[in-house]
């Protein structure tokens, strides 16, 4: 099932008793839930899990109107096949169940038996988000695209950031949306998410750029990059730098067995450490990795410990 099918259901007012909304686009999911409730004239109830309200759903009442029950990541519902069968048999007394899934595991039995009910809400395309942005702000195209990139195509976050711009503009009528946006990006009010910084960190370390190394290490920690990965990438790069730096032959590629691209990258980082320092670095990285594996060195402090010793 895709979003268009749900749209058609809403348009024809033929709502199925059970939907599964999956994907990261929470705001759009919310809009669809509201639309379904609106079309049917039902209220939206958000219980912790379906089991809590199962009696209310299956017991016919004279006075209560049916409702749209929305649950998020209900593990009981995913595992209880009896409950799933009852839902599948449409014994819901006119009630609607919408199960929101944060992550969709296609290997599960739940996915396989309910694949016809799953609607995947993927991130909206840049063009669609651009239309949304330009409908509610006066941001120019370039800044709108930048905002979409900063928010990583997350519609909910785009709306939150636009709210900030609107609230600020309400007090400072002289500034345009574009000026406010640029100011917010500059001062961090609209925060740019940390990017994959491992390779930049490794470059900074091998270029002996102390300040940049610590800054990028913080970035890596913010995005939860594994220390073992950092150490491993650094080891490989440091070894390549040593191989290139120590090479006496004019044909470095043949002599070292590295690819031309690896040699080119390594050459950019040559000359910042003596060969002996690089050798010590390799030894230390290996020692730290072994220490992490055997529990002798605290994982959280491992890269800091390395930087203190080599920079």
């Amino acid at each position: 099932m895709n979003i268009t099918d749900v749209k058609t259901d809403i348009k024809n007012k033929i709502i199925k008793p059970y939907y599964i909304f999956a994907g990261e686009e929470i705001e759009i999911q919310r809009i669809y839930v509201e639309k379904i409730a609106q079309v049917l004239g039902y209220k939206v109830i958000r219980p912790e899990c379906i089991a809590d309200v199962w009696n209310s759903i299956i017991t016919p009442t004279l006075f209560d109107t049916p409702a749209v029950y929305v649950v998020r990541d209900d593990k009981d519902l995913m595992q209880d096949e009896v409950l799933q069968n009852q839902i599948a048999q449409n014994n819901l007394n006119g009630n609607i169940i919408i199960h929101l899934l944060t992550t969709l595991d296609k290997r599960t039995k739940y996915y396989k038996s309910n694949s016809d009910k799953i609607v995947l809400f993927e991130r909206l395309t840049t063009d669609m988000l651009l239309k949304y942005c330009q409908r509610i702000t006066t941001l120019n195209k370039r800044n709108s695209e930048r905002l979409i990139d900063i928010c990583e195509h997350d519609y909910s976050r785009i709306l939150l950031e636009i709210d900030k711009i609107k609230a600020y503009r309400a007090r400072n009528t002289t500034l345009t949306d574009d000026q406010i946006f640029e100011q917010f990006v500059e001062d961090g009010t609209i925060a740019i998410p940390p990017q994959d910084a491992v390779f930049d960190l490794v470059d900074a370390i091998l270029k002996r750029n102390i300040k940049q190394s610590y800054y990028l290490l913080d970035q890596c920690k913010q995005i939860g990059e594994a220390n073992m990965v950092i150490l491993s990438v650094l080891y490989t790069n440091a070894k390549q730098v040593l191989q290139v730096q120590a090479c006496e032959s004019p044909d470095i590629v043949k002599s070292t067995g590295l690819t031309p691209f690896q040699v080119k990258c390594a050459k950019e980082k040559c000359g910042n450490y003596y060969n002996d320092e690089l050798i010590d670095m390799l030894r230390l990285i290996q020692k730290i990795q072994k220490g992490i594996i055997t529990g002798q060195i605290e994982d959280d402090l491992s890269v800091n410990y390395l930087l203190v010793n080599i920079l």
Partner: protein
Amino acid sequence: MIGQRYLLERINGQVERGRFPRFAIFIGEKGSGKKCLASTIADYLKYPISFVDTKVDSIREVINTAYKVDMPVIYVIADCDNMSNAAANALLKVTEEPPHNAYFILTCENEENLLQTIRSRGVTYMLEPYSYEDKCDYIEERGVPEFEEDENFILEVASNCGEVQQMLNMDVHQFKTYVDLVIDNIAEVSDSNAFKIGDKLALKDDADKYDLRLFWKAFRSVCTDRMKDGEDPLKYARAIAITGDSLAQLNIRGINKQELFDVWLLNIREEWL
């Protein structure tokens, strides 16, 4: 089975008294005959044997089966050194109270790589070292190499029957030449070229290259010979110590072989330069 006399005697006695544990752990280095011993026990007990991998799904499946079968089966979960925690935890349930018709045998190289909770529930059997005669018997059984020199080299380097077999499968003369070449040139080449020494070694489980453990054992053996011949004993003694240290680290769960080899290489070079 060749070797393991005392261990087999002990196990035989347990089997005769009906006291062989339902959860046993066999510990011994690669090639020491852990799986072969399990098969021998299956023959003693006259039960079928089933080899299981260490994936969590396989372990869960085997546990489910073990409760259902109506005749005794020996389940061998081999090479548990790199077993995930999820798999080990799945196994814990069955180790506390093994099903009536099941014997579980775990094999691993390093006891430390197993969860303490698993170790404490099983009866541990350490495989015995193989004597010179055991290895000779094995070679006799499998076919003696063409040259006596190769046979002697195998007997010096290999410390168990598995390694003897590994060496019988390779061109021993070529392997020895490679080891000699490494020893002669390791300190002569530049830092840049030195790392290429590892190109012929299976640092990432490449099947067609020399096993790192075997290479280090051969390196140690050749160094010992040269030391005995009176060639700069201190130099070779240090190299033997460094190699022994690296060999011990090879048993650490999750160790990066490539990095371990690089550091060994750098240490030898530092010592010999």
